[in-house]
């Protein structure tokens, strides 16, 4: 069975290749079957491996072949399987399967049906390779692979240039992070002589001391990669734009799996981070700042998918916070629950968009509670989990994060407080969404209802979003045991109460109308602030001014090849000489004689001078 682990990414990959090569020869049904079935098989295989593992929790490694071996550098195509891998694989194949199934209905009318599933399958394969990789180079392969698939899927509807722009932005911004990560790999290899993740940990123990500068630099570089892929400050700007892709793609790639790869990466390399406490704090601070920034932004958006996108950014911020405070398990746990409820929310929004003629603006929706009951309940459950209302999956994971953040020496309470503010905002914006979209008057009539291929994934995800909190993830062997000392009870009570308060505030403002905030929000300062938040804190604008425009300007300035000017100058000089000299050839013989006389004088001068 273990040897067959390679099949898990291979099957979606083969399916993808088949779909690309024989797209024209397959019926839509066959395409759907291949696309969904391949991920389904992967999911079943994963489940089998999971059951085996839970019965006999033994870590193993399967080497397929040597990828490259040059000098002392060697990297294999090898898979490593432990609890963490299992969790990630389960999320990818499980949630992935549901989203694939959902897609068959969502994309039903699209002409590029086969292309869609080809990309999606390829993504699943790449993502699996990412989490299964035994060494950082293979991980990097998956890492870049998912990036390309994300690019392809964001720009899936390439006919619209805006989508293409969003896709390119997504790829290039994450590439910046990827490059930092690549540099991190170079540094790790140069310092530790290997890229095998397990070997790295051992080598680090031999060569590094806690607090050294090398681990700090290396960890920061890896953090750079994680920040890019997980859309954290300051490289988060691509994710809201990436919503240009089909909604199931947003669910799978930009909510459940790919964007959490950064969390996985840091968790996977946590042994290195243990040598760099400053890097850990950096991770926590990045996470907290991102989660607050994104929460404020989500509050002001009115595109349903952008709200969810900012919410994703914010939630990943929580995961980073968890990693930064050493709550590895809690971080991964939140990763999993987030995958459930965020996929649920995205799919729900997909269903709405699907049924509402591709309407994205929440203020043009409303009253959908009765029109689309399944979707409504999905949203309710999803939002509850997102807001971390008690007993939902989100509650368990977020609570753990906040409590463990509180434990950190020194800044712990501040981190906790920041997290709480975020939690409050989360509750507000998520229920703002629910109240605006599903209650009130009907602004747009849906023209169809959700079919079974949408209902089943939604229902299953509802269950997971509700019950996911009780799953115990098998990562105890992976991470060092957290010294968990239960904080004072008031801390816990406050943590539980804050989301509920948030929901109430949202109700009062957006549904009940009891809380009149118009005067407040219409004030000049608040207007400006709202605009500021709406624009995503003008970070896009900043990058545009600082990087994009200068680069375009540079490219435009250099377009005509300034280096060639040198060669043109040489040519011009030669031509000028040619013209001068040619002008001398006037045809008048007396000039010729003069030239000869001149030559004679020169020769005489040279020769006689010497004598």
């Amino acid at each position, binding site marked *: 069975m273990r040897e067959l682990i390679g099949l898990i990414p291979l099957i979606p990959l083969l399916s993808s290749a088949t779909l*690309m090569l024989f797209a024209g020869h397959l019926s839509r049904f066959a395409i759907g079957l291949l696309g969904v079935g391949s991920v389904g098989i992967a999911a079943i295989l994963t489940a089998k491996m999971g059951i085996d593992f839970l019965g006999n929790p033994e870590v193993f490694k399967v080497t397929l*072949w*040597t*990828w*490259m*071996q*040059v*000098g*002392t*550098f060697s990297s294999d*195509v090898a898979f490593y399987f432990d609890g963490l891998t299992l969790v990630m694989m389960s999320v990818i194949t499980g949630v992935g399967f549901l989203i694939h199934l959902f897609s068959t209905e969502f994309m039903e009318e699209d002409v590029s049906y086969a292309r869609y599933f080809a990309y999606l399958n390829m993504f699943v394969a790449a993502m699996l390779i990412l989490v299964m990789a035994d060494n950082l*180079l293979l991980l*990097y*392969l998956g*890492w*870049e*692979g998912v990036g*390309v698939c994300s*690019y*392809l899927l964001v*720009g899936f509807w*390439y*006919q*619209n*240039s805006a989508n*293409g*722009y969003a*896709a*390119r932005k997504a*790829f*290039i911004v994450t*590439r*910046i992070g*990827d*490059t930092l990560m*690549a*540099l991190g*790999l*170079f*540094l790790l*290899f*140069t310092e530790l*002589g290997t890229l095998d993740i397990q070997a790295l940990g051992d080598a680090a123990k031999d060569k590094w001391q806690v607090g050294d500068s090398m681990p700090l630099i290396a960890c920061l570089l890896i953090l750079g990669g994680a920040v890019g892929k997980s859309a954290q400050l300051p490289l988060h700007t691509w994710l809201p734009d990436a919503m240009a892709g089909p909604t199931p793609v947003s669910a799978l790639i930009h909510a459940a799996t790919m964007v959490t790869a950064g969390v996985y990466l840091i968790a996977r390399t946590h042994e290195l981070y243990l040598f760099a406490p400053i890097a850990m704090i950096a991770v926590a601070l990045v996470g907290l700042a991102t989660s607050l920034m994104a929460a404020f932004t989500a509050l002001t958006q009115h595109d349903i998918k952008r709200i969810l996108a900012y919410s994703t950014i914010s939630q990943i911020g929580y995961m980073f916070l968890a990693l930064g405070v050493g709550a590895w398990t809690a971080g991964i746990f939140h990763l999993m629950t987030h995958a459930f409820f965020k996929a649920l929310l995205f799919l729900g929004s997909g269903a709405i968009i699907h049924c509402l003629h591709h309407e994205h603006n929440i203020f043009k929706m409303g009253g959908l509670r009765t029109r689309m009951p399944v979707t409504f309940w999905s949203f309710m459950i999803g939002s509850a989990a997102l807001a971390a209302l008690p007993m939902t999956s989100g509650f368990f994971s977020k609570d753990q994060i906040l409590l463990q953040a509180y434990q950190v020496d020194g800044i712990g309470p501040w981190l906790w407080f920041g997290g709480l503010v975020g939690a409050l905002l989360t509750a507000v914006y998520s229920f703002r969404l629910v109240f605006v979209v599903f209650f009130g008057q009907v602004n747009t009539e849906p023209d169809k209802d959700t079919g079974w291929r949408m209902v089943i994934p939604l229902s299953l995800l509802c269950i997971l979003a509700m019950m996911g909190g009780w799953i115990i993830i098998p990562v105890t062997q992976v991470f060092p045991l957290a010294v968990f000392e239960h904080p004072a009870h008031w801390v816990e009570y406050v943590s539980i109460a804050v989301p509920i308060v948030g929901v109430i505030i949202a109700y009062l403002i957006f549904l009940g109308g009891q809380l009149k905030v118009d005067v407040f929000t219409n004030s000049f300062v608040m207007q400006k602030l709202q605009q500021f938040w709406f624009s995503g804190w003008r970070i896009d604008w900043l990058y545009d001014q600082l990087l994009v425009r200068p*680069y375009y300007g*540079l*490219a*435009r300035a*250099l*377009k005509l*090849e300034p*280096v*060639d000017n*040198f*060669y043109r100058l040489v040519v011009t000089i030669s031509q000028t000489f040619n013209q001068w000299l040619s002008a001398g050839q006037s045809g008048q013989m007396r000039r010729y004689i003069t030239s000869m006389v001149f030559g004679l004088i020169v020769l005489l001068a040279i020769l006689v001078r010497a004598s």
Partner: protein
Amino acid sequence: MLMINLILILLIGGVVAIFSERLGADVPRKVALAVVIIDLIYLLIALSTIPQLETLQAPVPSDPETWLMHYSVEWIPAFGIKIELALDGLSMLMVLLTLILGAVAVSASWTDIKVRQGFFEANLLWTLAGVLGVFMALDLFLFFLFWEVMLIPMYFMIAIWGHENRGYAAMKFFIFTQASGLLMLVSILALVVIHHGNTGVWTFSYFDLLSAQIAAQTAFWLMLGFFVAFVVKLPGFPFHTWLPDAHTQAPTAGSVILAGILLKTGAYGLIRFAVPLFPQASMEFAPVALWLGVAGVIYGAILAFGQTDFKRLVAYSSVSHMGFVLLGVYAWNILALQGAVMQMVAHGFSTAALFMIAGSLQERLHTRDMREMGGLWQNMPRMGAIAMFFIVASLGLPGLGNFVAEFLVLLGLFQVDRLLAVIAALGLITGAAYSLLLMQRSFQGEPDETRQLVDFGTREMLTMAVMMTALIVLGIYPQPILDISRPVVESLISFSSIVTGGSL
């Protein structure tokens, strides 16, 4: 003799192609394809009989008998000039690449050559012959001869079958390479004269000249002569300006050969001649060369980003990619050198394919201006998908050949100079920027539904499949290639007795 035959087959094939035009306009291309494939098969059969290939005995650079093949016969004894050809792992890779891409080139211009097909195919075959000569010649005189002579048929290909501004482009190409070639000739002769002065023997043989004793100052200047010639061909910053023009104006097959093979002769020259002949001087010069390499990587990428002409963009991307080769060579450790070799091979395929796509677009749209393209995926989905493949290959997607190359080069460079590696790594980002822009402007965006365009047919798909397979294999299982070049690279490093920092 086998190596001579390889060249002769192509030369004679060219003559046959010219005369075959009398049988019909479409005969020469078939002849050309047949000739290249025969040559390839001949080579493969011959290689399969070499016992060393299995054991991969490390060749000693100065001992020709340890090479895979060696052939030597007197030519101009007055100067000790011999017809001396030899093959080791590195040249074998290059020869294989040449012949495969040669076949691709014939296929690439299957339909776009409308006049004087016979002469065209002849020039193509003769260029290939010249390139083979460059890769196999180990007598410096003979090497120089091939180096220069291969340009003439290439010149004709651009000058006769090129696009609107072909005269200028062909001229620029020829003058750049010839002028720098003259410097190399002076260097070669100076080297030989010095060797003659020391030993009283006239010889142009690589194997003898490796041991030439040269004063440091002189060696530096001589090395510079070689360096300039090779870097112009590579092309490295700031000698690259001939390339965009030549590429843009050349017919498709010309671009394919130029980008796929001809540029590699520069890299090959650096690895084979410039550094081993003058190890000490090269070491001293390495920092400058490395900076030039980095400059090429970044500058090429920025300029590629600014272009509106499809082929020009790809041409500048070559400048950027070949910058990595320069970095790889002058980092001069086994990682970086292997990376450089990989880059030579992988870039050969990826760029050749992109030029072929550019050629197909020009044939169909009669323009290379990307402002007049857009949404072509809609019209030609197969071509779009293939373009996407090669574009992600060229931006260095792991799993494809180019990534292995760039990764190894950067990793190797990192051991030597971290700052430079960091700057060069920016090339990964800028590379993504121009690659995706290319895709966006040509294949994505608003489609023009009124266009009636023919998608890739079987011939094109087959050709592309060859290159795609090659890149995938290079990407996920590069070890065979690395193993072939490893002994060469290792021995070169040990021979030059240069120890550059790092853990290697």
